[in-house]
């Protein structure tokens, strides 16, 4: 069993400050076909994958930014364009395999109501391959 806190998504080798949740989604890109011989049943084949992450964190403006990426750095990254908007992503789960790829931020959201701690949410999409890191 892997505890949630042992699963870490890192952007340029840094976790997100105040991180509370990392969600990974691997969606298959599929090709659909149907011939008369299929007799009404469609055929599907996987031609690739679309890998994305959704990360949630508390907004902490006084934490240690040497080992973690804070809100200001994330906003700066979210405002980049072109190759400057790309960054290294690694995803580790305790003693399980680690994976790496190149990511871009597709959505950045902050939420701050009157009574709760402010939170942020980042959507990341992997551009290109997402591959297992060789030990």
């Amino acid at each position: 069993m892997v505890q949630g806190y042992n699963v870490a998504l890192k952007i340029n080798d840094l976790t997100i400050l105040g991180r509370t949740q990392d969600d990974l989604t691997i969606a298959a890109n599929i090709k659909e076909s149907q011939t008369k011989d299929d007799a009404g049943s469609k055929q599907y084949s996987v031609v690739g994958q679309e890998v994305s992450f959704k990360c949630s964190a508390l907004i902490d403006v006084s934490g240690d930014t040497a080992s973690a990426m804070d809100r200001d750095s994330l906003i700066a990254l979210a405002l980049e364009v072109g190759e400057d908007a790309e960054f290294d992503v690694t995803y580790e789960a305790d003693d399980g395999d680690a994976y790496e790829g190149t990511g871009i931020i597709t959505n950045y959201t902050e939420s701050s109501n009157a009574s709760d701690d402010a939170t942020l949410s980042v959507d990341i999409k992997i551009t290109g391959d997402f591959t297992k890191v060789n030990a």
Partner: protein
Amino acid sequence: MTDSLRAKLVYTCREICPMVLSEDETKVYPYAVYDITSTAQMDKDGVYAFFGETVIRVVSNVKSEADSTAAAIQSAVESAFRDGSSNFVPGDFSKDCQEGIWTIEMNYTLKQYADWSEPVEQTNTNTD
């Protein structure tokens, strides 16, 4: 980080009136009965805060004394728990009188983001 919400609340109100738990209620007025149910708040790096659902009931047989004690506690709590390392959210406020005993109930959500310990009282050693 250790939960010090209860200790800080009692310390904050120590000079206003006796702060007691419900089982220690007396007939010596005024006093305040308090209760805190606190829960640890976690992020992936561990406990970053304690949030406490707090009820403070000021009890007195004199209405003006109940009002002034409640106002003093309200002011002290709101000042002590808005210091950068803690915070609060005010909740319901109610006032009631049963058989001449006034009860003012104040609810708060108290938030603690850093360790707190009771300040050490400085003794004056100056002999001049």
